[in-house]
């Protein structure tokens, strides 16, 4: 990860509560899901109220770091502030959860429906003060 450099620029997660920060406690970082303590429904992004049973007894759980690419696209016409081309897709995790994600480290060979992909983290963009906005991404598993 970046972040070792001496700088007053900060690394800011794209949104709080989506993933454990990579520099915390040296553990592997992970996406944070919510699990309903009443009906065991798992969701990402984490929910405050269960979509199945309306319970508010939700706990945070780490989600699997590997999944399958359900579908994807390569953007040619970006919204303001983003450079093309970039790939996005939906990743199906073994928990039965589908995660929208930027896809990184891809080539024409590895970017396929059904491809095995793994979690990684990286810069989404810089904000107006030069801080790095950090987000989760998935990349095709090599070999």
């Amino acid at each position, binding site marked *: 990860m970046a972040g070792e450099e001496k700088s007053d620029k900060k690394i800011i997660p794209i949104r709080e509560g989506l993933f454990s920060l990579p520099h915390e406690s040296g553990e592997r970082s992970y996406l944070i899901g919510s699990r309903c303590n009443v009906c065991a429904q798992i969701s990402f992004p984490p*929910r405050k109220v269960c979509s199945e049973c309306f319970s508010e007894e939700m706990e945070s759980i780490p989600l699997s770091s590997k999944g399958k690419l*359900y579908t*994807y*696209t390569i*953007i*040619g*016409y970006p919204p303001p502030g983003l450079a093309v081309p*970039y790939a996005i897709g939906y990743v199906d995790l073994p928990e039965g959860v589908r995660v*929208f994600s930027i896809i990184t480290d891809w080539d024409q060979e590895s970017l396929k429906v059904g491809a095995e992909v793994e979690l990684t983290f990286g810069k989404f963009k810089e904000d107006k003060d030069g801080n790095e906005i950090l987000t989760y991404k998935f990349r095709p598993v090599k070999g």
Partner: protein
Amino acid sequence: MREVYVIGVGMIRFGKFPEVTITDMARRAFRDAVKDSGVKPKEIEAAFIGHVRQPGQGAMVGQRIMREVGITGIPILNVENICSSGSSAFWSAFHFISSGKFDLAAVIGVEQLSVLGKGVLPPRQDDLEGLQGMILPSYFAMVARRHMHEYGTTIEQLAKVSIKNHRNGCLNPYSQFQKEVTLEEIASSPIVADPLTVLHCCPTGDGAAAAIVCSGDIVKRFSSKPIQVAASVLKSGSYDGGWRDLTTNDQTIRASHEAYELSGVGPEDLDLIELHDCFTIAEISHYENLGLCEKGDGGRLIDERKTELTGKIPVNPSGGLLAKGHPLGATGVAQLVEIVWQLRGEAGKRQVSNAQTGLAHCVGGVVDGLDLGACTIHILKR
């Protein structure tokens, strides 16, 4: 519940009109609908306005429009459901009249996107998807990719939708685009979200459309050729954070099933359809969702030319969103205007012969975790 009829319709040509005001576009569509209906403006008891409150245009658009045409003091309801705003406004009018609250109401759909500048509409930053670079075309690009993967649908089949709808648009004086496109032009136009190029996507633009709607109790006072609204259904997308089948649009299936049941009309009875072809893949997928063919066979339906103007079930004779244009709030009302013209036999060069029954389908709005935001189905009968 009472019967509900459309007794007057009007619209302006869709296009890019940054120099006019939104109230003026709506005023012209409304004036034509009132003239067409024969009602006196002061007889209108309520107005339902579909509009997406673009930045700078603010709230209370309905009140501003009705002030311009001299109708104030009545209930005016501004309805926002993104791409389905206009048809949701129509749905509101239908149910207020059907239930007996009003006898006579106006529905107006209007939008002015040209003032926002060029390009794709900006994604919402409070949805995780929009925050991370999702644009509306990319959602449909991913639907297309999966549909191609599961059912062998080809990019040429998708392109044929664009070819058909542009050809129909050439026959419609109200269409934003009135120019045919070829397979080669579609393939070589710039990529928006792979595999969709620009000519697989509807344009942004401006427009207005209006309808005057009344109860069966008073319809004979006004019109010798009223068009009955046989079903009016609105659904929202259902939440599913799991492994949803993206090649299907669940709310279109639910809404159309209910509309078929309410009207006693099945997909095989329809003479024409105006459906929400915001992208070519959407039309292919909605053939399946509306029950025109089996799941996965949408590509074959376009290959067999069954949805052409002269086919078994013409789809988007107006040119659809792809050619006629898609000024969000206006779109759903314009679909109904087209069906009324078709059922009256007033659709000129794009007339579907002896059309008795038509269906309008409007769906849209990407919301994280939902299979789009809102969907309406209307079935109209001569």
